């Protein structure tokens, strides 16, 4: 299965550009790591429920009440680009 691993395609899904050198290196290293995790196939998991989380909490709510939090200024304080109290996003539509 890990023979199917395509670092270029996966890096596109991850929105992460790779250099030629990185792509070659990761292709080899991750194929090796995926080969290692193949050992999970040995385990009989028939009828076993998956664990997403070790605690049994579910449906945790808190009051949907207004409270003090960031001002617009604080929320924008770390933005690389901003104007008029808004984040500037690179153009989505041509």
């Amino acid at each position, binding site marked *: 299965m890990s023979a199917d691993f395509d*670092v270029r395609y996966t890096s596109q899904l*991850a929105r992460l550009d790779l250099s030629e050198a990185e792509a070659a290196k990761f292709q080899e290293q991750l194929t090796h790591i995926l080969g290692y995790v193949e050992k999970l196939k040995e385990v009989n998991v028939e009828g076993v429920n998956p664990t997403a989380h070790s605690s049994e909490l579910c449906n945790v709510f808190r009051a949907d009440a207004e409270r003090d939090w960031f001002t617009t200024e604080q929320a924008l304080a770390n933005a690389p680009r901003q104007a008029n109290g808004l984040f500037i996003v690179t153009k989505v539509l041509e």
Partner: protein
Amino acid sequence: MELHQLNISELQVLLRSREVTPVEAIQAIEGRITTTDTRVRGYLSRDTEKALREASTADVSKPLGGVPIAIKDVINVRGESCSAASKILKGYTAPYDATVIQRLRAAGAIPFGRLNMDEFAMGSSTENSAFQKTANPWDLNRIPGGSSGGSAAVVAADEAFGSLGSDTGGSIRQPAALCGCVGMKPSYGRVSRFGLIAFASSLDQIGPFTKNVRDSALLLNALCGKDPMDSTSLPLPAEDFSRELGRDIKGLRIGMPKEYFIDGIDPQVNAAVRAAIKQYESLGAEIVEVSLPHTDYAVAVYYIVATAEASANLARFDGVRYGHRTDNPQTLLDHYGKTRAEGFGEEVKRRIILGTYVLSSGYYDAYYLRAQKVRTLIQQDFEKAFQKVDAIICPTSPEVAFKIGERTNDPLKMYLADIFTIAANLAGICGISIPCGFAEKDGSRLPVGLQLLGKPLEESRVLQLAHAYEQSTPWHRERPRL
């Protein structure tokens, strides 16, 4: 003895009797950092003026009144930088205090200093920091462990009385072992993760580094508790984690998992841990062999689950709301792809891609879903073992600190170094690493760590056992020469 050499409990006595002021405590730490941190390189930054101002009004009657605590660079402290040792967050200033910081402040402690780490807590040696390499105080040519390498190194070097780290697969316990201090990973849900930059949300837990077990309990008292801002924090009443310290351990049952005492453990580590087990027997504990049959699969499960969660968590670094943004992107895809390529380091990229792959269409069931099922079996292994024993004993790490640069080209080998710590995160149980002796390597004397794992929410039992051993052995009093 000089002030910076004290542990937290000793410092508190002097603070409360007014023999020492909180300002003097900060000055002592600042002095020590100035002398030794050019070699240890555990701190990324610190705001001494701010800490001194806070110290001048500290209330020493509070549980941690006037005690400075150093913070791993993955936990937000309002007004300070918080980069997760990544270029993508260089220049980021935290706009709020993490819940653990609010809790430390409420207990009277003073957050002081930002500690180096593997970028986004991904690594076992702190060599993945984008900014600097931290040295092991016992041998400056060796790694301090990771990912909380800075947190461990500064406590071992007496550059902090205590510190906070985070543990996703051993990132508190392994560096504590390699640097010869005490590192505690609380049970999942004990400590709020709000304000901790997320790596793998179902595994991450914040915990303390200290010079002894009692201090670990004191810090846990301040850190633990339900937080409305973290839906995974458990609604439990406050408890005193020091309540069992000093109580006789006679009759307590400690399990030795047969799968953890295997070939491949450094012989000196093996000898030190076996001597510790003998010591427990002489203290009256009963040693019982237990089995954790799915141990061999833990690393594989971990590197699927943790990378999957990381690939989702790190999607937020998009160059829009905070952090690095590439110059002059042509399109939105170009903006994302280049911003993230320029901002993330190699190990982080590797894990994002692995995590993306195991979650991708066509592979989800084979990798992620299967790993989650095996995770259930690993959790059940511990449930069964804990029906027979009060705690589990094993090495924290199969080896002592290795040399800087020795492992960087073999990620799988680096991952396998975490075999004894990873399962605790998958199962959500608590664990501690305490010093249990030394190994000689190439003329260096390097600490060995002993790990005790406890049932979920039984931190106080683990601390009791750790304390009993610690007080009957000399290891926790040893300090590196710097």
